[in-house]
């Protein structure tokens, strides 16, 4: 047997295959949806909402550059810096996120607006703007990170604090709470949901459903403030929310790009086809509920109010309501970069106008 001297050293043993990074349908990794490091208190409910947003946008495969993140002021309003770091954002003034969001989507109707607000930001100083945005059906996912207090100014009651809930210092709130979901339904909001920051699965499904909706999608998310409102006696603490959270249904979501059939027992699930063709599947738990029935949703929330029940789920969806850009009959292209010929009438028009004043 001829011995041969190998000209080259033997090849190294094959390296262990690099762990396959999970990519979404755009081929983007999860890191493309994360933001800068949160500066909120550790354990703050708002951070869980941030994580759910990241996950939902990643799963849905939203192009980050199409997103505009808007917020008011508060701990909650800081969070847009902590998710979707490759999207632009605008941290505006207290209670005025809706106005900024409205202006942005009018300028560029292709943007996917994500508005983040707090319970103080929305239900106190910003109540007017909140209601008018809902009434106009401005296309925007409107997230209220609801902790019943003003976190950033150190724990004062907000307008969503429940009657009888106690502050850390032991003061009892004796005014009735503002229910932003009930308000929104009254004002014609076509997507109204409530969740709890401790229920990641429910939040993610809701965010996806909101992404599939066109118009204002309101998500009121109970999000405990661990520093100022997580004590015994508070109705916005983790313990209270966990003990009292009553899910209305189990939410499943089939995005438009996954055309899969889902089997379910007849009568067990309510299916709603969304604006973009995605399907929301609401599996019945304790009660029959039709989230496309507005009157039923009003009754449901009224009952929950009198029974002091923390109901979570999608209370109302109407995928057909025309959004604000449609109501205004805007051209299909974004207004901001229309060429000059389309925004400056030609000379004969000015001549005609001038003649009218001669």
């Amino acid at each position, binding site marked *: 047997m001829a011995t041969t001297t190998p000209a080259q050293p033997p090849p190294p043993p094959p390296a262990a295959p690099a762990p396959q990074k999970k990519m979404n349908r755009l081929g983007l990794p999860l890191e493309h949806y994360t933001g800068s490091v949160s500066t909120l208190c550790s354990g703050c409910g708002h951070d869980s909402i941030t994580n759910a947003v990241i996950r939902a946008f990643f799963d849905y495969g939203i192009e980050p550059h199409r997103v*505009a993140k808007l917020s008011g002021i508060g701990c909650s309003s800081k969070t847009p810096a902590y998710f979707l770091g490759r999207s632009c954002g605008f941290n*505006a*003034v207290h209670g*005025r996120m809706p106005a*900024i969001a409205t202006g942005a989507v009018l300028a*560029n109707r292709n*943007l996917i607006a994500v508005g983040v607000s707090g319970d103080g930001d929305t239900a106190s100083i910003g109540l007017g703007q909140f209601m008018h945005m809902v009434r106009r059906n401005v296309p925007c996912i409107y997230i209220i990170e609801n902790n019943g207090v003003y976190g950033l100014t150190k724990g004062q009651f907000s307008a969503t604090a429940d009657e009888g809930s106690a502050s850390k210092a032991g003061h009892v709130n004796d005014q009735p709470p503002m229910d932003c979901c009930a308000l929104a339904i009254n004002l014609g909001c076509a997507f109204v949901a409530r969740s709890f920051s401790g229920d990641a699965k429910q939040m993610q499904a809701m965010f996806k459903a909101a992404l599939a909706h066109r118009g204002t999608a309101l998500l009121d998310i109970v999000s405990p403030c661990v520093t100022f409102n997580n004590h015994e006696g508070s109705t916005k603490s983790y313990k209270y929310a966990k003990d009292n959270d009553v899910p209305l249904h189990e939410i499943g979501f089939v995005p438009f790009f996954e055309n899969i059939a889902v089997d379910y027992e007849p009568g067990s699930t309510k299916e709603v086809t969304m604006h973009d063709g995605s399907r929301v599947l609401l599996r019945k738990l304790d009660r029959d509920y039709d989230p496309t029935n507005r009157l039923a949703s009003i009754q449901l929330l009224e009952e929950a109010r009198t029974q002091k029940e923390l109901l979570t789920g999608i209370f109302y969806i109407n995928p057909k309501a025309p959004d604000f*850009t449609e109501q205004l009959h805007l051209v299909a292209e*974004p207004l901001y970069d229309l060429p000059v010929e389309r925004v400056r009438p030609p000379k004969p028009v*000015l001549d005609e106008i001038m003649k009218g004043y001669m």
Partner: protein
Amino acid sequence: MPVDTMPTPAAAKAPSSGKPVINDFSIQVATANGSGSQSSNNVLLRSILQMGIPVSGKNLFPSNIQGLPTWFTIRVSKDGYIARRKVSEIFVAMNEETIDSDITDLTPGNVLIWNSDLRRTVKRDDLIEYPVPFNKLSWEACPDPKLRKLVTNMVYVGVVVHLLGIEIAECETALKKQFKSKQKAIDLNLNAIKFGVDWAQKNLVKKDPYRVERMNKTAGQILIEGNTAAAIGALMGGVTVCTWYPITPSSSLVESLIDLCRKYRKDPVTGKTTVAIVQAEDELASIGMVLGAGWAGARSMTATAGPGISLMSEFVGLAYFADVPGVIFDVQRVGPSTGLPTRTSQGDILKAATLSHGDTKHPMLIPASVQEAYQFAQDAFDLAEQVQSVVFVMLDLDLGMNFWMSDPFPYPTKPLNRGKVLTKDDLDRLGKFERYRDVDGDGIPYRTLPGNPHPLAPYFTRGSGHNEKAQYTERPSDYRNLMNRLAKKFETMRDMVPAPVIEADPKAEIGIIAYGTSHWATVEARDQLRAQGVPTAYLRLRGYPFNSQVAEFIDKHPRLYLVEQNRDGQMQSLLSLDMPQYATKFRPIRHYTGNTLDAAFIVENLRAQEKGGHLGETQWFGPRGH
């Protein structure tokens, strides 16, 4: 008529002889608000304009929809003066509520055309009177009681037409303008005018010297309100988002824009529009939407008045620190919110210039004419995008809501200037982007717009807590750098806002500075002063921040007068802040009655201060160094 409380001796000369006074007088008509008199007055105004004679019209109206007294003044001036005059030679008294006080206030020798069907108790024997039974005449002219009130007003047009020698054919043309193609309305009103003419012909003997005679000074001129002019400017300036909350005297600016856009900003094929106009829930929202839209790259605007400006304060500060563009038209009126919303003032100058908290300052464009309102509206959009700032266009009620004669507006020649916006291709080429870095040394950074797909494009916008890379920071040096860059940006704007207009006079020791609508009375006052042997030089401010010509002008003239329509010398404060070395040099001429400024007021105040003594009501502002 409301009498000015400012000290000016009445300078009316009652014509003693029958020597005719041609094309040089004013007519004032007293009616009740909502009685339809606006159409009659417009018809008079237009008829005279169409005869080639320079005219202007000023409406002094109440904050009320129906019933309160209104005075409309038409000035006929062969020399082309269009400021208000203190005295009107011809008075038409149609309002029972004010007839006695109106007649009491008339100057001896004035002409009084009055409705003799009204209850009048004041007697005068020093006026030239024409009693006319207008109620009776309107019964005869119009059998329909619903229309009779409107017709009454056209009957007085007929009487005035006859007495002044206005050509009836021009009234017909003016009516067609006024009522567009509504033939029934045109016929009804023309008949009423003719009825008035006939009656006057048969029953009145001309005793006064005032007449109009055809001239050729208005050929091709337009007659337009400043708010409409600004709206046309916004249309031509390519506005794409307009948000507003109704408030007098700014509403008609946006309402005009709505009408224009319905016609001229609609895609002929799809019927879709290229502009979003939103009536917001309040001014907090309207400015928020303007800034959201400006941030996202639209040419965005709002129009408001002082109360709205107050509400916009917080948001405008954010825009300052975050370099967000937007245009605010401020049609100024007197303060406060429950005050005299229908009276004019230059009362927001200081507020607008420094609106908000922290160190903030904003550029202002200050038009004096309808043509400038048109031009500056366009310039404001360019400037806002060029310097990434809120830009104020400071009109006032006088300019915005009164009719002004003007050359037709020229079609814009410049392309839209969209400022320093980086596209995806730009970023590919540059390979680098820092939102707030002063790359060009002018304090104006580059920006990207939301939706730009380049990975370098997105940035996070927040107030003052950001560094050059738009990252969050609370470092003292970062804050200071930001403040210094913004200050530098403001310096850059000195030569970007409209330059002042200077009329030098090498013989003049007196310099006059004025701005906005004070211009028209100032022009006339300078002519009067010149005739009295007092030459003056004139600088009209048209923008803030000031450029170097302003300091030169102040420096050059030993005595310097500053004409303003506010009590506290708001422009004087801005000038003094900017040029403290001249702070004691300004001699104030300040008019603040809610009425528009007149030349006599300027002349009297200036002459009094020249004598070194009497400063009128302005003296209690304390001594100003001379």
